[in-house]
């Protein structure tokens, strides 16, 4: 069984449907890129996958050992976080809270897990630093380490390279690819960046008209990509919330 199955899903908010008839599934170890123009319903899809929004119709099931709360989430940064006084360690550890239950403190094992994830992402040396003083790329690594604390199976990344310079962008893509390759973590990434999606992803979900779900090769030959690229999406001037 797949880790995530969406069947005939209608997405929307405030009672207004945005996307109809969405069908796709994600296998363990897959790398899925979700493409689509602004306002097409990508963010709504993410929020629905994370159970922050209810589905309007249809169903979203998790399986293959994945439970609903085990999706590690890398959100877009919010305005609040830009000047939030918090150390890197504090933020990374907050990814562990899902497994704490009612226990008010972190156990030794949980702290060790947080340390291990910081090491994996190469941010151990930043552990005592203040989050708001880090570069954009470093901040994304911190949030990625936090997401890894919440999951060992699936990461959901919401435009992880928005606002990063080309170097940091490349590093971020490589990091995600290596988590997928070496740690077997399933990746679902929302992106604007078609060339990168073609390069890294195994499957593509295009939200728009027509809806498309299939392998990257099928997407390339479908011609949707060209159409999408002819009308390049304007980068939002201020992508934070």
């Amino acid at each position, binding site marked *: 069984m797949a880790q995530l199955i969406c069947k005939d899903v209608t997405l929307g908010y405030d009672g207004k449907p945005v996307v109809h008839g969405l069908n796709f599934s994600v296998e363990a170890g897959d790398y899925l890129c979700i493409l689509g123009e602004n306002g097409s319903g990508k963010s709504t899809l993410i*929020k629905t996958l*994370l*159970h*922050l929004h209810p589905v309007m119709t249809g169903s979203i099931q998790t399986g293959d050992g994945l439970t609903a*709360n085990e*999706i*590690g*989430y890398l*959100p877009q940064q*919010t305005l*609040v*976080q830009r000047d*939030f*006084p*918090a*150390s890197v360690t*504090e*933020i990374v*550890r*907050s*990814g562990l*809270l*899902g497994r*704490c239950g009612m226990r*008010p*403190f*972190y156990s030794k094992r949980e702290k060790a897990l947080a340390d291990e994830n910081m090491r994996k992402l190469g941010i151990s040396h930043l552990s*005592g*630093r*203040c989050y*708001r*003083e880090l570069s954009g790329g470093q901040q994304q690594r911190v949030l990625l380490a*936090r*997401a890894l604390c*919440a999951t060992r199976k699936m990461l959901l990344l919401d435009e992880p390279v928005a606002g990063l310079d080309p170097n940091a962008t490349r590093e971020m893509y490589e990091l995600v690819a290596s988590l997928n390759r070496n740690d077997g973590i399933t990746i679902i990434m929302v992106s604007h960046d078609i060339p990168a999606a073609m390069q890294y992803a195994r499957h593509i979900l295009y939200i728009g008209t027509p809806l498309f779900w299939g392998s990257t090769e099928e997407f390339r030959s479908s011609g949707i990509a060209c159409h999408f690229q002819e009308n390049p999406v304007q980068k939002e001037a201020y992508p934070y919330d």
Partner: protein
Amino acid sequence: MIDTLAAYFAYPFVRYALIVGVLIALSSSLLGVTLVLKRFSFIGDGLSHVAFGAIAIATILDLGNNMAVVMPITILAAVWLLRTGQHTKIKGDAAVAMLSVGALAMGYLLLNIFSKSTNISGDVCSTLFGSTAILTLTQLDVWLSIGISIFVILIFLLFYHKIFSVTFDENFSQATGLRASRYNLLIAIITAVVIVLAMNLVGSLLISALIIFPALSAMRLFKSFRAVILCSAVMSVICAAAGIIVSILASTPVGSTIVAMDIGMFALSYLAGQIMSKG
């Protein structure tokens, strides 16, 4: 001067004032960090005006105990305000402003129409700017304040990490299985309780100061959430104690004196922060 102080502290009501003042300052500073970071700096202001309106209603109804009316109304308003923050048509700050001004006006209007007192402006002034209420506390008030402060501190100890996570990133917390809405509700209720308590001390208008100044001062100096919370609590306690003592010695209004101390502390922290970031 020490003799004068010693003489004053012989009176139980002075000791009560100091205990209650320090405890309320401590509780509000703990909450303040979260509220400021959640962009709810004005919630203290808004809720205290709601409490003012509620007091007006309670006075008109001539109930023996105002708390029975004021507390539930303020809690409801807090829950409504913190909930509207994210998804509604009226944005958080506008909702606070609306409620704040509305409650203040309606409260004053009601008091005027159904006046029972001969000195309305005196009553209003003491509710808004704090009165000598803090010097006429009964033993029951003191125990109530102690109880509620301990409750607030316990909640913070027990849910510290969760409050951090919900404040830093609500969506992430919820996605990983934390009931963010439940913690928001908890924060809303504590906020309302602390504000109603703090009205005795500094009055409606100055409650925001107790909530935001220590948090803002601490944020100038420290860069981790834990350090900011601890520093904010320490600063708030120092300012409250110093303010109460100065107000006794110089016969100034208690609330405004405490706020003056908080402003002084903020100015110092700001300077220190500037120097630290350059050096």
